[in-house]
C-alpha cells in the first residue's frame, strides 16, 4: 500500500505541474482544449490526495508500523480516535492534510464556477494549481509521508500526550480550512492582475470566499484557545505563543480586508490596498506554517519541527515578490474610480480601522519574530511573551473596539453634525452609564474602563440599528415582535449578519476582560481533610488516588467543592503519566457556569503526602466561547446574502 501512496503523491505532483502548464498554454493561445485539461488535472490532484489520505489513515488505524509515520506517531495502546487524528500530528501528515484541503478548495472553486465560460476563472485555477505544485513537491521529494521502515518495531512511539484531546480531532482541520482557504482570494487577486481585469464582480466573489475562510480560521483559533484552556493547564486560554500569533495574524489582516472591501464595492476605491491585503493574508497563512515547522521559535505548539522551514520561507519570498511586481505593473488597473467627499465618513472610519488592524498585526509580528532578530543583532537570547503583548496590543485592540461601534453608524460619503448627534449621543450615554455603574463596585484601571465603555457603546449602536430597521418594517409591513427581527435580518443579511458578528466580538472582549482582569487565584499544599478557600468556593481534599486510564496512569486528587453552604460535588484534577512518553501531563478539573469557571489543577503530590492544588476563578470566560459561536452565526447569515451578487451580475451582464 505504501507504494500506492507514494505513487499517488508523485502523480499529484505531475498533475499539478500539468495543470499549471496546460492552463498557461490555453490562456496564451486561446485554445479551449488545454484549459479544459488543466481544469481536469486539478480534480485529479484532489482525487489522488484523497487516495493518499485514505491509505495513510488505514495504516494509522491498523497500526501498520512498517510505515515510519505510523511508528512515530501512534502506538498499540492509543485509542482509535487519536490514531485517526494522528494524521495531523506529524509534519508529513499535516502537509498531506494541507494539500488535501488545498486541492479540495481547487475542486470546489471549479465546481462553483463550472458554468462560467471565462478564461479569468482558468487563471484563478492556474494560481491554485501553482500552489499545489509547491505542496506536492514537498510531499514527493522533501517530506514524504510513505517512508517504510526496513524493520518495523513491535510498537510505535505513541502520540504526543498534548494532542490526545478531543478538541484536537477538529481544531487542526478547521484551522486548515481557514488557513488554506485564503488561497482562493489570493488566486483571484493574482488572476485579476494577470488578466488585466476591471470591474467589481470579482471583488464580491472574493469577499464571500474570504468570509468563509475567515469564519473557519477565527473558529479554529478559538478552538485552539479552548484546547489551551483545558489541556495546557495554566489557567488561561491565550498565551501569545508564536504559533497562536501565527494563526491570529492572517485573521486580523483578513478582517481588515473584509472592511475595506466594502469601500471598493460601494465607491470603487482602495483597490490596490485590497489586493495587497489579500496577498498579505495569504502570505501570513503560509508564514504560520513556516513558524510551526521551522523550529526557529520556541512554542508549546511546535509538535512537528523540521528542516522544511527554508522551503516555506522561499515560497513566501517568491510568491510575495511576484504579487508585488504584478501590483506595481498593473498600477493603472487599480486606480480609484471615485474621490472622497469628507474625511468624517464611513470610508474614513474603515481606513482607520484598517490602520489599527494592521498595527495589531505588525505588533504581533514584531513581537513574535523579535527574539530571533535581537539574538542575531545583540547575541543575547530574549523572550517576548504575554507581558509584552498585553502592554502593546491591548490598547490597540481597545481602540478597535471603540471604532467597531463608531464605524457602522457613520454615513457613507459624509457625516453631518445631526447624524453624529443622532447616532452617537445615546450609545455614548449608555457607555458612560455602564462605566459609572461599575465604579462603585470596584471597576478601576484605564483598560477595563475603556473596555466596559466600548462594549456598552457598541452594543447600544447595534441595538439602535436593529430598532430603527424594525421600526421601518413595522410601519410598512406591520410585522411584529420576533418576526420583525427575522424579517429585517432576512432582507439584509449582509448588514445585520455583520452586526451579529460585531456583537459576538464584543462578547469576546467582555469575556477576556472578565477572565483576565478579574481572575482570582489560590494555591497551596493540602493534606487530606484540609481546605483551600477561593472567593465563595471551598475546596476540601478528600484524598489522592492512582488509577489507570486508557494509555496513562492518573494520579488524581479528590476535591469536595462547596460554594457557600452548598455542596457542588467532587472534582478530580489529575496528573497523567503516559506510558509511552513517560511525560507528566496536567488534567484539569473544570466547573463551568455562564458567570464563571472554577478551574482546578493538581500541581503534584509532595513527599509528605500533601497535594499541591492550584485553583482559579475565571469570570465570564464562557462569553468567549459563546461569542465565537455568535460570530459564526453572524458570518453564516452574511454569507447567505446572495441577492447583492445576483443584482451585480445583472448589472454586469
Amino acid at each position, binding site marked *: 500500500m505504501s507504494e500506492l501512496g507514494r505513487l499517488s503523491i508523485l502523480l499529484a505532483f505531475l498533475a499539478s505541474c500539468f495543470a499549471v502548464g496546460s492552463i498557461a498554454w490555453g490562456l496564451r493561445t486561446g485554445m479551449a482544449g488545454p484549459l479544459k485539461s488543466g481544469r481536469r488535472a486539478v480534480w485529479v490532484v484532489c482525487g489522488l490526495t484523497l487516495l493518499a489520505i485514505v491509505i495513510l489513515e488505514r495504516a494509522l488505524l491498523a497500526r501498520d508500523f512498517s510505515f515510519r509515520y505510523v511508528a512515530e506517531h501512534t502506538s498499540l495502546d492509543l485509542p482509535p480516535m487519536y490514531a485517526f487524528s494522528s494524521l495531523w500530528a506529524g509534519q508529513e501528515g499535516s502537509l498531506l492534510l494541507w494539500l488535501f484541503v488545498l486541492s479540495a478548495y481547487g475542486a470546489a472553486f471549479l465546481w462553483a464556477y463550472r458554468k462560467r465560460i471565462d478564461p479569468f476563472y482558468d487563471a484563478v485555477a492556474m494560481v491554485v494549481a501553482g500552489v499545489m505544485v509547491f505542496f506536492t513537491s514537498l510531499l514527493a521529494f522533501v517530506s514524504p509521508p510513505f517512508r517504510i521502515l526496513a524493520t518495523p518495531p513491535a510498537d510505535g512511539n505513541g502520540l504526543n500526550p498534548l494532542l490526545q484531546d478531543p478538541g484536537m480531532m477538529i481544531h487542526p482541520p478547521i484551522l486548515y480550512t481557514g488557513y488554506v482557504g485564503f488561497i482562493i482570494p489570493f488566486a483571484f487577486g493574482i488572476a485579476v492582475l494577470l488578466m488585466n481585469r476591471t470591474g467589481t464582480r470579482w471583488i464580491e466573489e472574493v469577499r464571500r470566499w474570504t468570509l468563509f475562510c475567515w469564519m473557519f480560521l477565527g473558529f479554529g483559533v478559538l478552538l485552539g484557545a479552548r484546547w489551551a484552556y483545558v489541556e495546557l493547564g*495554566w489557567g488561561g486560554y491565550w498565551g501569545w505563543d508564536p504559533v497562536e500569533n501565527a494563526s491570529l495574524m492572517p485573521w486580523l489582516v483578513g478582517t481588515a480586508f473584509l472592511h475595506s472591501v466594502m469601500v471598493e464595492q460601494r465607491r470603487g476605491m482602495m483597490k490596490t490596498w485590497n489586493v495587497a491585503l489579500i496577498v498579505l493574508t495569504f502570505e501570513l497563512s503560509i508564514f504560520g506554517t513556516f513558524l510551526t515547522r521551522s523550529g526557529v521559535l520556541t512554542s508549546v505548539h511546535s509538535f512537528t519541527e523540521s528542516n522544511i522551514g527554508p522551503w516555506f520561507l522561499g515560497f513566501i519570498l517568491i510568491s510575495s515578490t511576484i504579487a508585488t511586481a504584478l501590483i506595481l505593473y498593473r498600477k493603472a488597473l487599480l486606480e480609484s474610480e471615485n474621490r472622497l467627499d469628507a474625511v468624517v465618513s464611513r470610508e474614513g472610519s474603515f*481606513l482607520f480601522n484598517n490602520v489599527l488592524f494592521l498595527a495589531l498585526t505588525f505588533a504581533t509580528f514584531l*513581537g513574535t519574530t523579535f527574539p530571533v532578530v535581537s539574538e542575531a543583532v545583540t547575541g543575547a537570547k530574549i523572550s517576548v511573551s504575554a507581558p509584552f503583548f498585553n502592554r502593546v496590543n491591548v490598547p490597540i485592540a481597545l481602540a478597535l473596539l471603540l471604532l467597531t461601534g463608531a464605524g457602522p453608524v457613520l454615513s457613507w460619503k459624509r457625516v453631518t453634525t445631526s447624524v453624529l448627534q*443622532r447616532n452617537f449621543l445615546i450609545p455614548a450615554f449608555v457607555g458612560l452609564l455602564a462605566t459609572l455603574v461599575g465604579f462603585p463596585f470596584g471597576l478601576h484601571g484605564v483598560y477595563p474602563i475603556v473596555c*466596559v465603555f466600548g462594549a456598552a457603546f457598541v452594543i447600544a449602536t447595534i441595538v439602535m440599528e436593529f430598532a430603527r430597521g424594525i421600526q421601518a418594517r413595522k410601519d410598512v409591513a406591520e410585522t411584529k415582535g420576533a418576526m420583525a427581527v427575522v424579517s429585517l435580518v432576512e432582507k439584509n443579511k449582509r448588514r445585520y449578519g455583520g452586526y451579529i458578528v460585531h456583537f459576538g466580538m464584543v462578547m469576546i472582549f467582555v469575556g477576556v476582560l472578565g477572565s483576565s482582569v478579574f481572575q482570582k487565584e489560590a494555591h497551596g499544599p493540602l493534606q487530606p481533610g484540609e481546605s483551600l478557600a477561593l472567593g465563595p468556593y471551598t475546596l476540601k481534599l478528600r484524598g489522592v488516588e492512582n488509577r489507570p486510564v486508557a494509555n496513562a496512569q492518573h494520579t488524581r486528587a479528590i476535591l469536595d467543592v462547596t460554594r457557600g453552604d452548598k455542596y457542588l460535588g467532587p472534582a478530580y484534577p489529575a496528573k497523567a503519566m503516559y506510558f509511552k512518553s513517560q511525560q507528566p501531563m496536567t488534567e484539569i478539573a473544570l466547573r463551568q457556569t455562564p458567570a464563571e469557571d472554577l478551574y482546578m489543577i493538581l500541581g503534584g503530590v509532595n513527599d509528605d503526602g500533601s497535594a499541591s492544588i492550584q485553583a482559579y476563578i475565571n469570570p465570564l470566560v464562557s462569553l468567549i466561547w459563546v461569542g465565537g459561536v455568535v460570530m459564526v452565526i453572524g458570518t453564516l447569515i452574511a454569507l447567505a446574502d446572495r441577492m447583492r451578487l445576483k443584482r451585480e451580475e445583472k448589472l454586469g451582464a
Partner: protein
Amino acid sequence: MPRPIVSRPAPAFAAAVALAFLLSGALAPVSALANESASGKKDPARAITSQLICPCSCGEILSGCTCETGKAMQGYVDREIKAGKSKDQIEASLVNQYGEVILGAPKAKGFNLLVWVAPFLATALGFLIASVVLLRWVRRRAPAMPGAPGAAGSDFGAGPSTTAEQDLDALRERAEAELKRFKE
C-alpha cells in the same frame, strides 16, 4: 441641507435606555468581582512570576507553569519575597543566573527598545499616512457620474449624507417595494 435631528426617536431611544439598565445590571456582578479580586491581584509572588518565563524549554509564563522547573522557580520567588527581597532584586538575581531570556518582555533599552517603540510609531505613522491620503482624496474630489459606483442611491446605505428621517424613508421605500414584489 441637513434636516433637524430626529422626528421619531422613540423606539431607538427606548431600546437604548432599556439596554442601559440591562447592561448596568449585568455589569454590577462583574464590577463586584473586580472588587473581590483586588486582594487576589495583590499577590506579590504572582506579580513577579506573571512577568517571567519558565527557564526550562516549555516557554510558558512562570505563574501558570506546572512543570517541575516551574514549580521550583515559583518556590524560589516565594522564598525570596519572604526573605524581604523586592521585585527588582528578585528579577535581577534571576537575570544574573539565567540571562534576560527569563524575562517575559525585554527591558526597554538598547536595541530591544525597538520592539517597544516600533508598534506605536508604526500606528502613529499609519494614522498620519491614512489622514494624508484621506485629505488628498477629499481635495481631488470630482462629481460622481450618474450610475457610477458610489453615485447617489447606487447601493443600500450609500448616497448623500442621511438623517434619521431620510433613513426611515429609504427603509420604508425598500420595505414597500419588497412587499409589493412578495404580493406579486
